[in-house]
């Protein structure tokens, strides 16, 4: 590799296949059997060829990452930023070799350690001592190396007294400290870190940041993914912004952070449709809709004869449908042949924080005339909906219902 470049990615792309159930439900047993037989044959074929298996009868491609090229030089600390679903995790997974790219290539020079999580492989039944060896080996350290750094790791974590206690009896703080201590003592030439700093108390986070700075200061290369702008600002030399699986910007961190902040305003996508001019989601209060808040869907129509609009809300990341409605369902009849903007309001949205996309379909006189997938992308931000300071996990589903205790 020329010069001091230690990571060179060229045209990286990762395609996922998403299955849809498009055919109508089977009405006869024969039909059902025939269909499952076909499905089985396809799965078996795909399995033998090592292709991923997809449920559903129609398969759609989804590029989580596309045309990503960049270079990282020795000793650089590069931040990777972007919203949820922008492709950051996919990029990290490719660089850590957990998943293979669909196209493109990466050349990495030197020993790589990737930290996508603290305490990967920790076993609750094993003691702290045993877990240090286990976790170290999983992260790529040799046994000799772990033995050499053992005392240092224990010291950093501050768990001397509990070394021979199963980690299931550790407090969560101790657990995280031990896990990070092992990771911090890796000595790779290249360190790939996911948002592991989002755990632990503030003081420990500072200690971790300090340790990472140490790592960076020793001429090691760090690729650091974070939402934490302060951490990016404090640690990185350069930053890469990913948007919808593509590189939007590579360059100075200051410019990147600035760009990302202004990104939040970009809520609507300019549509190339002739009948739907514009579509966007707006928050009723504030800039971005929050969990439990109200938002409006703003659609600008040109003249359409007997228009009927339909909306399908999906989780942006996996395109999982979360809800949908159409104008007939809610009893609204838009006037014919009259250009206008229609505004719908969704009140007290029960959607969890995250990114969502909206497919819009337009019917005229009952015929489908327009269907725009992901016409709108919007984000819902976290809010303390249960008033306990504990926000429902975004990965636990897509909605949060109202829950109360009725009997004790």
């Amino acid at each position, binding site marked *: 590799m020329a010069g001091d470049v230690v990571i060179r990615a060229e045209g990286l792309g990762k395609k996922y296949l998403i299955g849809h159930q498009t055919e109508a439900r089977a009405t006869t047993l024969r039909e059902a059997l025939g269909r499952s037989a076909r499905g089985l044959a396809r799965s078996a074929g795909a399995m033998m060829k090592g292709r991923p298996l997809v449920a559903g009868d129609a398969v759609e491609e989804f590029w989580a990452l596309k045309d990503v090229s960049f270079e990282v030089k020795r000793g650089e600390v590069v931040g990777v930023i972007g919203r949820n679903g922008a492709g950051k995790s996919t990029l990290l997974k490719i660089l850590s070799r957990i998943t293979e790219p669909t196209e493109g290539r990466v050349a990495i020079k030197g020993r790589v350690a990737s930290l996508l999580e603290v305490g*990967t492989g920790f076993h609750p039944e094993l003691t702290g001592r045993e877990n240090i060896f286990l976790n170290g080996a999983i992260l790529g350290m040799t046994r000799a190396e772990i033995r050499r750094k053992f005392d240092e790791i224990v010291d950093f974590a501050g768990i001397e007294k509990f070394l021979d206690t199963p980690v299931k009896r550790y407090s969560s703080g101790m657990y995280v400290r031990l896990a990070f201590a092992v990771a911090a003592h890796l000595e790779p030439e290249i360190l790939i870190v996911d948002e592991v700093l989002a755990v632990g108390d503030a003081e420990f986070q500072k200690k971790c940041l300090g340790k990472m700075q140490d790592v960076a200061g020793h001429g090691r290369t760090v690729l650091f993914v974070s939402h934490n702008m302060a951490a990016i600002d404090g640690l990185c030399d350069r930053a890469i912004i990913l948007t919808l699986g593509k590189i939007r910007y590579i360059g100075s961190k200051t410019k990147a952070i600035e760009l990302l902040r202004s990104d939040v305003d970009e809520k609507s996508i300019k549509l190339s449709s002739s009948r739907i001019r514009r579509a966007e989601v707006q928050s009723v209060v504030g800039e971005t809709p929050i969990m439990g808040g109200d938002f409006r869907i703003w659609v600008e129509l040109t003249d359409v004869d007997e228009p009927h609009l339909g909306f399908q809300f999906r989780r942006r990341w996996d395109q999982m449908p979360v809800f949908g409605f159409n104008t007939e369902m809610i009893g609204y009849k838009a006037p014919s042949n009259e250009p206008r903007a229609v505004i719908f309001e969704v009140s007290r949205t029960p959607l969890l924080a995250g990114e969502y996309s909206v497919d819009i379909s337009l019917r005229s006189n009952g015929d489908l005339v327009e269907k725009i997938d992901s016409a709108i992308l919007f984000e819902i931000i976290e809010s303390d909906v249960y008033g306990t300071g504990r926000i429902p996990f975004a990965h636990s589903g897509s909605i949060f219902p109202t829950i109360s205790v009725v009997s004790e």
Partner: protein
Amino acid sequence: MPAGAEPDAAADRLTVIAPGLAARNYWRDLWHYRELFAILAWRDVTVRYKQTVVGVLWALVRPLLTMIVFTVVFGRLAGLPSDGGVPYPVMVMAGMLPWFLFSTILGSASNSIVSNGNLISKVYFPRLIVPLSACAVALVDSAITFVLLVGLMLSYGVAPDWRIVFLPGFVLLAVLASVGPALILTALNIRYRDFGFIVPFIIQFGMYVSPVGFSSAVVPEEWRLLYSINPVVGVIDGFRWSLLGGDTAIHWPGFALGCLLVLALLWAGIRTFRATERTFADLI
């Protein structure tokens, strides 16, 4: 990237990631990760025997009770003959040793990728390590059953002869015979999670079609070759032949067929596993 572009190029390991490349250096990679294999195997064994009493007790009680039931049902009630005049309980135990090795590997390996899902989705290593390390627990369990067998042989006065030297070979054969089917089941289990329910059934069914509770000598001569299509038959016969001495005999044509099938299944298993392994992280 020419290799000689830099003087210190040899000191730095160059990793190239591209579609299909991981498959090319597969076996070298597997060797490179041998220490991880050892530590995962050690973890599985440690966790299994952490509650020492339960772990060891289970490894002792399960074969002991099965042996008693089989001896009563097949030996006493059905009145089947033993193998080469060896006491019936000893013969059953000698057959159970490879059978439990086989079934434990099948059971734990087929579940191993799913239960290590957290590792698979966060760290890279050749995935083959995970089901293979599950074999370690099965081997330790078998060692305990072996102690039981030695005790039984002592109390019945059955002594092995020179053929005992072949035992390690048959242990290896038993492991190889288990790994092939286990890898196929592992791959299926990741795609179809409900496949996990089928594995115990296969194991239960297999115990009755394999000569665990009886001697394969009771199978009529003209059916012996057909019976050997079950690869476990050859393994069990081999264990009895090498362990029990005396007049125990192996049906050699059947044994050869069994070995061929073991190799064929092993090849198919590794192939299926490797074909699906690249997508594990995406599926879990």
